[in-house]
């Protein structure tokens, strides 16, 4: 009898565990007995904002929409990406998702994110207030909530110590300034170029930015790669000339973005192309660093508007969500004039709503300077919306590394990259 009881007990535990394990794979539709809906919102924004500020915004949303609760799933950018890639594959994405423009095409192709054009129409949403929308074949899948631009950060003290009196505005002036800063000696170099292939966004932010600043493009009008064009070749040859002049901080082939920021913060490099989002971090880590932000240098003969690279905190809705209308209410809330301005101010970015005006009164004056640069030029990031954009950056990165290490010519690099990209685009 005792034995039978033991056996039954073990079987019961096993059955319970089995049920629990299988149950883990099931999904909850987010609706509770009282008729309220709980939306899951996965993003990397909350950890990058002042503590508690994003939760406060969500509380305000819930106050305005008592039947909708929001459960924030917050994590760093990289882990959020992995979570979303897995969720997209298994069709278990949270209801609302923070998106990077580089992911949109792949998620849309998988049918993981919803058609926002239809949701906007259903909700009678005025699309004219949006600064931009990320579309795939005419359908919107992502709305940029906050934009972060990448101007040129310049260490004023190093440049003046090196005898650079005029801020570099052209490629020639930049090379000259970088040479002079490098000539200061020690561990100081003129520029930092992060080409780590694990996260190859250095190609977007630090290489192609030179192309966009001169009004160039890496794509044809019909969206095909155009890497063998004279403009792209000029860009690559310019980057190589900086490398040959030994003005780039050593270790660039495996340098990560955070290494670049660290080197600029510690005064080891005179100039970097970096996100405005890092201004506070730099000032926190080195309050005495005297630096400013400038438009990216362009080709010497270029007089047109300058493209400035940007990254966005984008938002989308999961196609598998059973509460798309409620999810879009959250999107509407974050894109409203008042809240979008508030969020942009908190994030030190530029609003995705054209009518929103960020409050720079309590911000660092550099944000106002950057806003002026942003308004004088145009946001440029041709990787946004491309399929497998990270893979495209990586394949270009690997080819560029071969050129910088003298293993192949710039022409060969571009024709090989063109071949790689053509198989994707």
């Amino acid at each position, binding site marked *: 009898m005792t*034995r039978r009881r*033991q056996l039954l007990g073990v079987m019961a535990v096993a059955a319970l565990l089995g049920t629990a394990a299988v149950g883990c794979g099931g999904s909850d539709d987010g609706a509770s007995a009282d008729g309220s809906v709980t939306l899951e919102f996965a993003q990397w924004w909350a950890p990058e904002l002042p503590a508690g500020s994003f939760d406060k915004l969500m509380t305000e949303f819930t106050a305005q929409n008592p039947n909708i609760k929001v459960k924030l799933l917050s994590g760093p950018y990289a882990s959020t990406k992995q979570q979303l890639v897995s969720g997209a594959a298994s069709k278990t994405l949270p209801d609302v998702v923070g998106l990077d423009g580089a992911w949109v095409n792949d998620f849309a192709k998988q049918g993981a994110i919803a058609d926002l054009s239809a949701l906007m129409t259903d909700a009678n949403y005025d699309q004219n207030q949006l600064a931009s929308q990320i579309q795939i074949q005419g359908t919107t899948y992502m709305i940029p909530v906050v934009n972060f631009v990448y101007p040129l950060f310049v260490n004023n003290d190093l440049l003046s110590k090196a005898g650079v009196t005029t801020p570099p505005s052209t490629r020639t002036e930049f090379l000259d300034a970088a040479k002079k800063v490098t000539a200061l000696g020690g561990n100081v170099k003129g520029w930092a170029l992060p080409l780590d*292939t694990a*996260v190859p966004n250095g190609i977007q932010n630090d290489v192609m930015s030179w192309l966009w600043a001169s009004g160039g493009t890496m794509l044809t009008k019909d969206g095909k790669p155009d890497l063998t064009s004279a403009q792209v070749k000029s860009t690559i040859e310019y980057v190589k000339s900086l490398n040959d002049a030994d003005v780039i901080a050593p270790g660039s082939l495996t340098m990560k973005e955070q290494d670049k920021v660290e080197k600029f913060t510690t005064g080891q490099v005179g100039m970097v192309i970096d996100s405005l989002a890092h201004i506070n971090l730099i000032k926190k880590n080195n309050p005495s660093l005297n630096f400013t932000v400038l438009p990216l240098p362009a080709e010497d003969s270029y007089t047109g508007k300058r493209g400035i690279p940007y990254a966005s905190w984008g938002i989308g809705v999961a196609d598998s969500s059973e509460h798309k209308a409620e999810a879009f209410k959250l999107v509407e809330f974050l894109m409203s004039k008042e809240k979008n301005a508030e969020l942009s101010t908190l994030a030190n970015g530029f609003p995705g709503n054209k009518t929103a005006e960020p409050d720079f009164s309590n911000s660092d004056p550099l944000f106002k300077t950057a806003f002026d640069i942003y308004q004088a030029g145009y946001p440029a990031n041709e990787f946004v919306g491309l399929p497998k954009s990270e893979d495209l950056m990586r394949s270009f990165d690997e080819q560029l590394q*071969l050129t910088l290490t003298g293993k192949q010519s710039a022409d060969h690099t571009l024709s090989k990259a063109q071949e790689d990209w053509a198989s994707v685009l």
Partner: protein
Amino acid sequence: MNSAKLDHAPPAPPAPVAVVAPQTRAAPPGRARRFLAKSGAPFGYLSPTMILIFVLMIIPIVMVISYSFKDNVIVQQNSVFVGFANYTTVLTDPDFLAALKNTFVFITVSTVAHLVLGLGFALMLNTSLLSGWTKAIFRIIYILPWLFTVAVIAVIWRLMLDPSGVVNYLLTTLGGMQEGVNWLSDPGKALWALTFINIWAGFPFFMISILAGLQGISGDLYEAASVDGAGPVRQFWNVTIPQLRPVLISMAVLDLIWTSQQFALIWMTTGGGPLNVTEMLSTYTYKQAFSSYEFATASAAAVIVLLLTMVLAFFYVRLQKER
């Protein structure tokens, strides 16, 4: 014979209900039930583990294997069976072959170095030439690398091996070198630098295991060897090594398996670069899945890694059985 007898036997008088009833209930359980209870009980006890293994291991492995035979899996709704096409793609991909070669170098050098360093430090900690306090201090120092998480190890070594980091500072200041070395970004040095970091991070586990093995060797064996005229070197080769052999082989096989699965350290230090010289099977598979969204080829690569690991696991299990 018995049945014939029964056929011709006179009909038995009806038995009283009170007597028959217990007999009909007791008859089937009897031997069969005891047998079932006896043979089923172990499975009952094992069933929680078996269910978990089935749900968390068998199902994912079967899914990955099935993905490896399909095209456009996960990213498209209707994937099709393509046979071994993904395996052909992977096995003819120069990046995969480079990753295979790099992984071989990485795990072989790491394992040999782990064994040699682990044995050396274990012998030092087991010696009678040092006092107990000295050995305790060194034991703590030596085990420190094992206590750090991979993320911390990656950050520490990235900072130390930075072109303007501590290692280059020491080499240029004390070592008389003119210029610092790009340890992790020079294609000629990155794989060795990465292997060094992995050796540093992993040797304490070998040291502790071998030390436990050393402390289990009977002093009588050394005494007998000494009486036979064997010196310290002879004793090491003829007593210590044979006695440690099962531990050393088991540890080596396990280390080969573990190191072949190393991902986080590589990803956080070099990311497979520069110029793919530190690309390993793990990073190659990750990039296929999470960067190229080629889950089918990623699955094929993962199955190949699984097969290679199973060969090692087979030797490990066989060794364990021999013991």
